[in-house]
């Protein structure tokens, strides 16, 4: 599914758009439709709260120094779920992720992961709980080789887990080919794969991905999303921030739309994609 198709359907009548979305549901997301336990509502300003979710963010206020960016954010990721956060620039999408890892200044609210309150817990301790984070930029150690980058991903373990290394190399064969090359000499897409591979070394329950498609050549974007689908299909829950909103919403289980540091809409990805209000306000019509 390319942007051109999406753009074409955008210009079409509502029926055509519906058909397009339905077609997607049929092929891409048939297997995901049961996993979503939430009762679907039309995209409303009500954010559904989930009990016993894997990651549960409640009433979160956060920012940098005196600058508050997030206000009263509620957000859930369930076991094995694929959640996307979309929204305009500066809406606080990345800030949510950074706040989970306490690399912003937390001003209120709570973050609970897998039953443990991790509000303000240091990143090096959060890692132990099964939470992985791939930041948007500078997400590899450039002067370390590919294999050393992956070893750093497993720093908290006594031994580098060979089976995990095998798994990462199977997912991203290019990394095995280049394993002794300095990470700084890899292409942007390869660095993105390495960053994901590093986060996967600990077999996290939840992987936070901040704009994995940023800076990639258009033909690589779909490949990257395919890889993310595979990671999710193998049982790792995903929380992803994406600029590429239409593609991301089409692939994910559920989406959140952020505006001005607030969580404005929540629903199944396709429902959001198809919601006239969301489309008009945030997805460019």
């Amino acid at each position, binding site marked *: 599914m390319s942007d051109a198709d999406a753009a074409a359907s955008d210009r079409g009548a509502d029926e055509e758009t519906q058909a397009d979305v339905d077609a997607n549901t049929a092929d891409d997301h048939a297997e995901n439709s049961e996993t979503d336990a939430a009762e679907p509502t039309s995209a409303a300003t009500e954010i559904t709260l989930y009990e016993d979710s894997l990651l549960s963010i409640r009433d979160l206020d956060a920012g940098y120094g005196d600058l508050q960016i997030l206000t009263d954010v509620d957000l859930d990721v369930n076991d094995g779920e694929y959640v996307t956060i979309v929204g305009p620039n500066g809406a606080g999408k990345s800030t949510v992720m950074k706040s989970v890892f306490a690399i912003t200044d937390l001003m209120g609210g709570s973050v609970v992961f897998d039953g443990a309150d991790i509000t303000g817990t*240091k990143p*090096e301790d959060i*890692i132990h709980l099964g939470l992985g984070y791939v930041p948007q930029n500078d997400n590899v*150690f450039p002067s370390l080789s590919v294999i*050393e980058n992956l070893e*750093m991903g497993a720093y908290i373990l006594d031994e580098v887990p060979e089976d995990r290394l095998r798994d990462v190399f199977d997912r991203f064969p290019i990394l095995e080919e280049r394993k002794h090359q300095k990470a700084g000499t890899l292409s942007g897409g390869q660095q993105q794969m390495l960053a994901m591979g590093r986060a996967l070394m600990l077999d996290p329950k939840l992987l936070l991905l901040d704009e994995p498609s940023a800076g990639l050549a258009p033909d690589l974007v779909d490949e990257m999303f395919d890889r993310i689908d595979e990671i999710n299909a193998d049982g790792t829950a995903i929380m992803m921030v994406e600029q590429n909103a239409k593609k991301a919403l089409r692939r994910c289980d559920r989406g959140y739309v952020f505006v001005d540091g607030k969580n404005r809409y929540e629903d199944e990805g396709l429902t959001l994609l198809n919601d006239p209000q969301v489309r008009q306000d945030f997805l460019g019509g």
Partner: protein
Amino acid sequence: METANIAQNGRRLVTKNPMAAFLIVVGVVLIIDVVRQLATGDITFARILSLVWDGLMRGLVIGLAGIGLSMTYSILNFANFAHGDYITAGAFAGWATTYLIAGRFGAESSIGSLLLVGAGGSVFGGALGINVVSTPLAVVAGLIVACGFTIALALLMDRFVFKPIRGSGGIPLLITSIGAAFAIRYMLRFVFDPGTRGTTAAGAVPDIRPTIIDGSVVFTMHDLALIVVAGGLMLGVHLLLQRTKLGKAMRAMSDDQSLSRITGIPTERVIRATWIIGGGLTGVSGFMFVLWKGTLSWNDGWLLLLLIFAAVILGGIGSVYGAIVGGLVIGIVASTAVIWIPSGFARAAAFFVMILFLIVRPQGIFAGRSTA
């Protein structure tokens, strides 16, 4: 045809890279001058060899001390001006121990005089007959204490001086470190007395003096000790950085601190390890420096620090390998400069070479290579 090519290449060099051309001309002039001096008998081959050897030894000290400076620069992002005085502090702590053991815990002189490394001329190092061959235990114990004391000093300074302001950037840290340098230096001066003392008896150190071409060159046991200790530690640092988990984490931290943190690297622990390794190497370099040159003064480390900075910058600041190579270059330049200029200007020559080199290659020798 051949000469035409050379002329063409020469012309291209002059127009494209006048600085390099200038340096080549200067180098040629210096070499011609050495040939002239050799021809007229102003200097001997053996003398030149002695100077190069002396520079190599000095370079090992500078390189070893520079590793610690480079490590703290790349991992903590600040230039630690107190580093030179860590060297002196390590040297005093180590030599107090060496004196104490060589002086048989007060049998030769009062314990106080021994502990103060003969402050005010109360004990003369030469009288204790210290050297690696006749008092190996005293030397090894001194080396270990110098290492341990400097580690403790570095950790204490970090905990109480640098850590509280670590978040406020490189410049406040740098200025604070200058203050710390003065505090340590004058504390040493206050406790140990400002006099320069001879620690080993001149000429009493076992040596060999082979005749090479036209004169004899002296190689002492202390040269050998310095080569073994410095070379061994440099190799150890290399293996640490390339082979061990801690070393790789140190390189990762020097690449990107915040990424290290979210990757799960315990950054505070790595910083502590950096101070321990850097501090230990610094203390050892201070002790070995004094063992090798045979004198000890409260100003030694501070004066050496300028050359260490020159070496570290020349090597590509932040690179451990750069510090080693830069140290050797600076050491050899500072020693061999006396072939052409009065010895009072030797230090200036080292800086001059550093500046010239940086004009041609501003990033230093090893910039962009594996740092730590």
